[in-house]
């Protein structure tokens, strides 16, 4: 639509600007309020500017060990990120080749997005409870000592990890589809003609070309996991992730400490995403440099 910009352009630009303002309003509010003075409350006006509430946060929020929750969420996010990239990438390859049951697996992935999170969460919670019951029954029936002090299988890297993957993998797979649809198979054929084996083609041709998209999938995986609340809620053992702790805190904390917490979690996300974006840019630059060196 290469027409001169008319009224429609300015109207739509206005809508977009208002939307962005609407999006950022709350984020900027908590950013400002987290630097509230020591005597300030949950709302405006600001009573001076201080880092008082960050210091309070550093000491810990009430009975909840927020730092342990943050560490758990970070660790889980990174594991989910790695698994999402790996599993989605290989699945993308498989779908490109085609296999019997591809339609079914795809339907499962789409269902995983469509089924309400609370239902998935409840199902996984039930699954692990029934597994625990089964193990206890087995211990009682056989008298095997190693089973007798069985606690629960539910936990961060079992049920919660699974719950997060049901949310991140469909997105990862959809992105991989979009990426492979635009991927020129001539590159692979060229590699094969030059005598590269399958794994060599993957490692030296496909992965480097797709690297930016893979970083994108990784980012998506991390952000979705780090923020995930609904699917985790019923599928976590005794140790909560950060969003779950935050949800609990909304009803108990009545000081700007919670805003400081919000600012901090945003900073953590920004740090991870910034690092990843920087890495992508660096990779692209390096590749361009090498290509230039190859031409010379």
């Amino acid at each position, binding site marked *: *639509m*290469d027409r001169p910009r008319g009224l*429609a*352009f300015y109207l*739509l*630009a206005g*809508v*977009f600007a208002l*939307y962005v303002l609407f*999006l950022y309003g*709350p*984020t900027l*509010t*908590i950013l400002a*309020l987290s630097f509230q003075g020591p005597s300030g409350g949950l*709302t*405006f006006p600001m009573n001076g500017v201080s880092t008082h509430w960050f210091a309070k946060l550093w000491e810990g929020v009430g009975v909840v060990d927020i730092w342990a929750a943050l560490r758990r969420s970070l660790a889980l996010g990174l594991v989910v990120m790695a698994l999402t990239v*790996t599993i989605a990438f*290989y*699945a993308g*390859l*498989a*779908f490109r*080749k*085609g*296999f019997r049951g591809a339609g*079914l*697996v*795809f*339907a*499962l*992935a*789409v*269902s995983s*997005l*469509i*089924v309400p*999170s*609370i*239902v*998935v969460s*409840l*199902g*996984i919670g*039930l699954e692990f409870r029934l597994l625990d019951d089964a193990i206890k029954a087995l211990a009682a029936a056989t008298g095997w000592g190693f089973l007798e002090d069985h606690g629960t299988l539910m936990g961060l890297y079992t049920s919660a990890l*699974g719950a997060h993957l049901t949310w991140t993998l469909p997105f990862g797979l959809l992105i991989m589809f979009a990426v492979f649809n635009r991927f020129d198979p001539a590159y692979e054929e060229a590699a094969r003609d030059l005598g590269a084996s399958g794994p060599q083609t993957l490692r030296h041709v496909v992965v480097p070309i797709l690297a930016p998209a893979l970083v994108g999938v990784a980012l998506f995986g991390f*952000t979705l996991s780090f*923020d995930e609340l*609904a699917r985790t*809620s019923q599928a976590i053992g005794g140790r909560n992730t950060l*969003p779950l702790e*935050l*949800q609990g805190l*909304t009803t108990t904390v009545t000081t700007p400490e919670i*805003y400081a917490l*919000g600012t901090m*979690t*945003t900073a953590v*996300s*920004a740090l991870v995403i910034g690092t990843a974006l920087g890495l992508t840019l660096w990779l692209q630059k390096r590749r361009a440099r090498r290509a230039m060196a190859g031409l010379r």
Partner: protein
Amino acid sequence: MTDLALPAAETAARTAAPTVAGRPRRRTLAYLQAAPLALVFLAFLVVPLVLTGIVSLWEYNEYEIIPALTLQNYADVFDGCLSADLCTTLRTYLSTVKFVALTLAITLPLGFAIAYFLAFYIRSGTVRMGLFLLCTIPFWTSNVIRMISWIPLLGRNGLVNDTLRALGLIRAPIEGLLYSDFAVVLAFVHLDTVFMIVPIFNSLARIDRRLIEAARDCGASGAQILWTVILPLAKPGIAIGTIFVTTLVMGDFVTVGVMGGQQIASVGKVIQVQMAYLQFPAAAANAMVLLAAVLLMILGLTRMIDLRREL
């Protein structure tokens, strides 16, 4: 529910068949590569849903669940629904459906307008990428935090009320800004519009610009082009976005809780409370009803489109 996307499944199987038959080794490899994905969905989606279905038919008391068949849990869900005044379940669903409708009524035009702006009016790819990034940065803040940050804006002595009072537009603060239906819908729009923008943008970006030029050459007005050319071609994106928003709102239990001041009922919250009281079969029955409701709502939409062709 797996038969939802079966049209897509069949076409995929058909197109894949010839290449698969020819190369048995590649086929084995493809199975290996898809296996982890399939296993994750089997272990954390299929089995849990089947178990939920089974447990929803079990009996329970205060201490344990008893593997004995009963339809009592479903009877409890719909208890009193046949009488003249609405039962709790039906009221809860009506309230949730109302939120779905209101949220869609706002996110759909808003998402379309923004996607349209990005797809047709932003010419440089870099600027477009930058604007997209601008829309995603707020999502780096936790959803829960973003919800409570409405409090200093909408509260009794919040920024909005204070500003309006300072401007002399109102005398007493508006009470219903926070902890009300308005606040809930506002939060949904805030959280979910992006799920509308991205699929619609994807559809719009794939429209062949020559079609629009042809329409204009044939004398179509801007409104006619929008209505007869662009909108039909954007339908898949609109459908996908609608499915996303519907599911997110139907299954929600956090937003309604926080923004409604824990006063407004939602189906997700009912399930959560029942889980907390260890009434697993009751929660499972509610979950199955919710699942059925959601699937019914989006069945028509999935029929209309072949999702995989849209990427």
